């Protein structure tokens, strides 16, 4: 069971500044431990949606750091808009989390 993401979406003017932290091992498939090589295991796809409409479709390799961070900006956003994020890894595990855009400061 994948862990929840931590997503923050803050309004700056009419742009939502979206910052996403995910928990994932992002294994390169070469790391050796006492029990052998840890298999390749990484997030391949991240989709960011604004009120249900895809604004970013990302493809990743195993070179993205463990416990990944993604920062994006969404134009034409309002306070209370929904930002949802879905990642899918090479083993088919996936996770979706959603937040409302918070008013800027």
């Amino acid at each position, binding site marked *: 069971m994948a862990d929840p993401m931590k997503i*923050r979406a803050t309004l700056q003017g009419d742009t939502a500044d979206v910052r996403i*932290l995910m928990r994932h091992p992002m294994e390169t498939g070469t790391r050796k431990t006492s029990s052998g090589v840890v298999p390749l295991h990484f997030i391949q796809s991240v989709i960011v949606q604004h009120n249900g409409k895809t604004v970013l479709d990302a493809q990743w390799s195993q070179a993205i750091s463990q416990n990944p961070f993604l920062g994006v900006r969404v134009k034409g956003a309002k306070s209370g808009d929904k930002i949802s994020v879905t990642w899918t890894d090479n083993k088919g595990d996936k996770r979706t989390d959603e937040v409302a855009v*918070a008013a800027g400061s």
Partner: protein
Amino acid sequence: MEKMHSVCLAFSAAAFLAVAPPVMAQGNDLSVGRKMLVEDNPGELWIDQGKDLFYQKRGPKNVSLEQCDFGMGPGKLEGAAARLPRYFADTDRVEDLESRLLTCMTSLQGFERNALIKQAIGRPRTKGSDMEALALFVTSKSNGMKVNVTLSHQKEYDAYKAGEYIFYRRSGQTDFGCVQCHGEPDKRIRLQDLLHMTNKAGAQEVASTWPAYRGAHYIVRTMQWRLNDCVWQMRLPDLKYGTDYSIALTTFLNHRGNDAVMNVPGFKR
């Protein structure tokens, strides 16, 4: 909520920097990278992990940690970590955050102390230990508040002075005490900055940024781990978990770090 708000403030400043003209992006050596990492700290993922552990009924006695007294009364977490270490009458001892968690996990929840200690320092690239997540959750409840380690009980004075003594005590084949690496400003071991702990600002950084996400281990680490790793480099033997030695050093440093604003998790390369 309070924490979220202050974090959001920090974020808007950060966003400005990220789109600043290219001049900002050059001649930056290490600082730009450090700033970017601190702003979006994967260690935050551990706060909820610790929160779940804190409120779960666990251990042989099947109770949560809600009745644990961190010095402000049972269950009162706001600002409690910012005042640690302090004297606790029930154990008649000065305790830091981790030794206090050990106390509660044994006395309230019925865990076996040695078993807890064995697992207290998590393996890199895992979810880390329960202790690490709990320590971060409890400390996060002091975010935005000022470090305020007071000396009023005799044992607190004793711990402070013993910590100071240990800070300067040299031994072993490297002839190192703490002060050999942490007694001057702007020093580095290789590329890693060494905090100037005999200076107020340096002590404040120690007192306000642990537990921290340790980038090279991909997990959250606590002050006890930091001390363990220091004595390992100093070529001293294995430091036991939650001893008076660690508590004394932490009392010395945190008291000198008073008035720093708590901001955890920190980010350490």
